[in-house]
């Protein structure tokens, strides 16, 4: 019997800073505060950490974090690429390291001042070579433009409408209105606001885009055995997967036979193959929502509905509390905070602990996904 990651590790601590358009602390300080909060939540001392994982886009490296918080000897550290596509892989890499004995206490984190800091797309110096030479000169400048292109085609092929995208934005906003930590806590959304808002990259309007946030989050991963002795109810890492499909091109996946079936499909095949349950058994999902169209695409990719049915799936309150699949119950990247999807991981843990501000009754299984439209990752959590 080959080794398996199934339920071999658990998330036993989560931490976060405030989320805001502008926070006074540096990214490094925010990273340290989130990590120390996660360790305090777990009841584990910083000196016990021996593994780190984050994103390649994370500006604070392991060396800085480890020496600031007082980590011990570190024997595993990894960084995952492709922006928000790496979020769940941070947990996946640590689960693999802990399950195989390379480390015993892993910390994953993301700290980002995207609210008050620079917009990455404005730095044309690093963006213009491959594949930017094929897109940037023509004014395809921002992630919203690149995903807008796929969204328009999706709407054309499957009859999806702006109302379907609104269903996504509304579900996330409704959950944020229940979450005091969310940036949009006191900012209700209406259909009229959505339909009359300014366009960012037509067909995508302001409310189809995620927030710009300063903030940081972290979580702590240990073996399932050790998790049973921790202060919090363990949330087991049931299955993990990364996904880079054949002939995929990243944000501009325009040059293969089927641009609308992206990395979610690849990650999902492996994720479900390793799992004891399927999409129909998922109680609540945290689906990466940098842009609203990523939700219907991900619903299809992860097998909640068939190809082309993702938009229709959002109808009739399906994504709301009590619906077929409540999503992004903290408000997601659209309405809680956009920290490259790490808040989705921590919200998944809150659901399975039973302490979410929008708690799905008796939630025992949760899918968390990373950025769709880029090489991605996903995890299945269970209580």
């Amino acid at each position, binding site marked *: 019997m080959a080794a398996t990651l199934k339920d071999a590790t658990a998330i036993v601590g989560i931490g976060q800073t405030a989320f805001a358009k502008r926070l006074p602390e540096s990214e490094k300080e925010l990273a340290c505060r989130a990590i120390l909060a996660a360790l305090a939540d777990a009841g584990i001392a910083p000196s016990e950490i021996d593994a780190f994982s984050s994103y390649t886009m994370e500006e604070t490296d392991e060396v800085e974090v480890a020496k600031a918080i007082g980590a011990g000897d570190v024997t595993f550290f990894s960084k995952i690429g492709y922006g928000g596509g790496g979020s769940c892989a941070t947990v996946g890499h640590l689960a693999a390291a802990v399950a195989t004995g390379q480390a015993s206490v892993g910390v994953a984190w993301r700290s980002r001042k995207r609210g008050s800091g*620079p*917009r990455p797309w*404005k*730095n*044309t110096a690093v963006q*213009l*070579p*491959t*594949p*930017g*030479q*094929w*897109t*940037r*000169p*023509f*004014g*395809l*400048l*921002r992630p*919203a*433009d690149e995903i*807008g*292109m*796929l969204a*328009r*085609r999706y709407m*054309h092929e499957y009859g999806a409408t702006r109302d379907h995208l609104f269903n996504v934005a509304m579900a996330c906003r409704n959950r944020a209105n229940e979450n005091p930590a969310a940036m949009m806590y006191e900012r209700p959304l209406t259909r009229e606001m959505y339909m009359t808002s*300014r*366009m*960012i*990259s*037509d*067909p*995508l309007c302001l409310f189809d885009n995620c927030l710009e946030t300063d903030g940081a989050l972290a979580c702590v991963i240990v073996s399932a055995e050790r998790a049973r002795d921790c202060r919090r109810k363990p949330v087991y890492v049931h299955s993990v997967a990364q996904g880079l499909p054949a*002939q995929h*091109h990243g944000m*501009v996946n*325009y*040059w*293969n*036979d089927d*641009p609308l079936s992206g990395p979610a499909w690849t990650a999902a095949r492996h994720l479900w193959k390793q799992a004891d349950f399927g999409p129909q058994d998922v109680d609540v999902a945290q689906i990466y929502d940098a842009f609203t169209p990523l939700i219907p695409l991900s619903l299809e990719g992860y097998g909640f509905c068939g190809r082309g049915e993702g938009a229709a799936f959002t109808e009739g309150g399906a994504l709301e509390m009590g619906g077929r699949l409540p999503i992004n119950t903290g408000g997601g990247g659209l309405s809680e905070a956009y920290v490259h999807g790490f808040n989705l991981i921590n919200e998944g843990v809150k659901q399975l602990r039973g302490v979410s501000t929008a708690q799905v009754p008796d939630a025992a299984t949760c899918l968390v996904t990373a950025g769709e439209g880029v090489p991605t990752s996903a995890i299945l959590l269970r209580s």
Partner: protein
Amino acid sequence: MTTPSPAADELLVPVPDEDGAPFWEYAARGELRVQACASCGRLRFPPRPCCPHCQSFDSEWRPMSGRGRIWSYVRPHPPLLPAYAAQAPYNVILVELADAPHIRLAGNLVTSADAPLDSVDPARLRIGARVQVVFTRTGGVTVPRWVPEKS
């Protein structure tokens, strides 16, 4: 990023890599060419060192008819880089090449080669519309543009 760039008010020009350079060299001669495997003949885009089908490192640049159809499009609005904001909302189209439908080139639909990026009436933007390549010089570099195909 706060460093002022001399070209801050101009459209971006392509910065070719080694694999992409021939595309731009042919464009400068008014030719639309796509990389093909010299061994198995399959077209590939973006250009790359070897063929993903037969792993051959031999390649050639095959002339395209320059005709295609709009596969999708967006109309970007600010915030944008200054030169683009000045023409916003403009269009960016993806053109499915008639010779290779799985290759979709990003570009702009304009009324004529040297017309601004917002020169086409947005009501004329339609998925499936037939377009034809033209070339224009911008910032010292020749880039493709697209005009509605004359029937």
